[in-house]
């Protein structure tokens, strides 16, 4: 019986670890937006991978950058070629390290969070910025250099926290009709959510906390 699922629920690096630690010989097929990728395992080692136009280690790196995609693992299928000779542990480490440094990964690292935030009613825009106001991700085009305005507001919020000898606020809400802007920290970034001014913070905050967790 084949193992099937989606990379949203079970990441590729977990699938690779699972098959290697189980010493499987198997073929893992991944489908993403109509494009197919393949990873072959032989006695618990990754021996070949394809994800057009890449093969071998580069194909593994490209597949690891996908945050969603249907997968299927079928046991007993041997690889058509051997293009990967690295131990699976080192293969994963090297590929994930390379991924951390690529723009492709940075572009999509917030996709999952955005998906969850947009399930909250009246969410109109989500933006992720750094302390200098540079946009890391945004759900729509930004007008009027708002990103710098938001970064400035967040900087002042840190100072406000200092007055109360507290840390930066967990959430900040700024009502400026017709919008309500909600700010929070997320790793080393700030997430700014634009919602309808009528949203009630008591209702929305638990939903946002859940979406951001």
């Amino acid at each position, binding site marked *: 019986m084949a193992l099937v699922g989606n990379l949203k629920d079970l990441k590729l690096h977990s699938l690779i670890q699972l098959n290697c630690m189980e010493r499987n010989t198997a073929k893992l097929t991944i489908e993403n937006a109509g494009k197919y990728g393949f990873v072959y395992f032989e006695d618990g080692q990754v021996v070949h991978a394809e994800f057009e136009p890449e093969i071998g280690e580069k194909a593994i790196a490209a597949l690891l950058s996908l945050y969603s995609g249907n997968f299927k693992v079928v046991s007993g299928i041997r690889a058509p070629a051997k293009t990967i000779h690295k131990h699976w542990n080192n293969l994963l480490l090297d590929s994930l390290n390379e991924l951390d440094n690529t723009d492709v990964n940075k572009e999509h690292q917030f996709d999952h969070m955005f998906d969850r935030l947009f399930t909250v009613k009246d969410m109109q825009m989500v933006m992720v910025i750094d302390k200098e106001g540079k946009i890391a991700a945004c759900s729509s085009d930004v007008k*009027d250099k708002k990103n*710098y305005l938001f970064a400035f507001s967040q900087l002042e919020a840190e100072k406000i926290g200092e007055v109360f000898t507290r840390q930066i606020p967990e959430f900040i809400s700024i009502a400026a009709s017709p919008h309500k802007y909600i700010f929070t920290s997320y790793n080393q970034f700030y997430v700014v959510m634009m919602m309808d001014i009528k949203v009630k913070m008591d209702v929305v905050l638990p939903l946002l906390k859940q979406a951001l967790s």
Partner: protein
Amino acid sequence: MLKRWLKEITNIDGVEGVYVATNRADIVNTSGLKFSDDELRDLTKRFLRIIAAFDYNNERITELEYYWQNYFLICKNSNHFMLVTVCRSPNVLSLLRITLNVAMANLLEDRKFNKWLKSHIADRGFFLRKEGLTLAEEKLLAKLK
């Protein structure tokens, strides 16, 4: 009238205190808060900077709220003054917001208070002047302009 409304707000169980400030960051009156006037002035300047920055971007802030684990700060902004409340309990936020809205409406109608305010009108943009800002704040504001 002002003192009466501040008292009304502080009487809500869970509210630590409240104060009113002008656009010059002058503290008009406080109730229940244990912070010094200087600390409140510093806090007010931060609010005024944010409000002024949004003004510059043609967006008028009517309310700022800050949430910590069990500590909340609500700043209601009007043209010439702000009403800032500090609260420790999330359970009273709904009641507090209603009370704050009523208090603001009454203060906006209060002739004596408004007459006094007229002599304390100031441009919030004053707090975006270079002299009072850190380098980080200056850099961000420069990009906004």
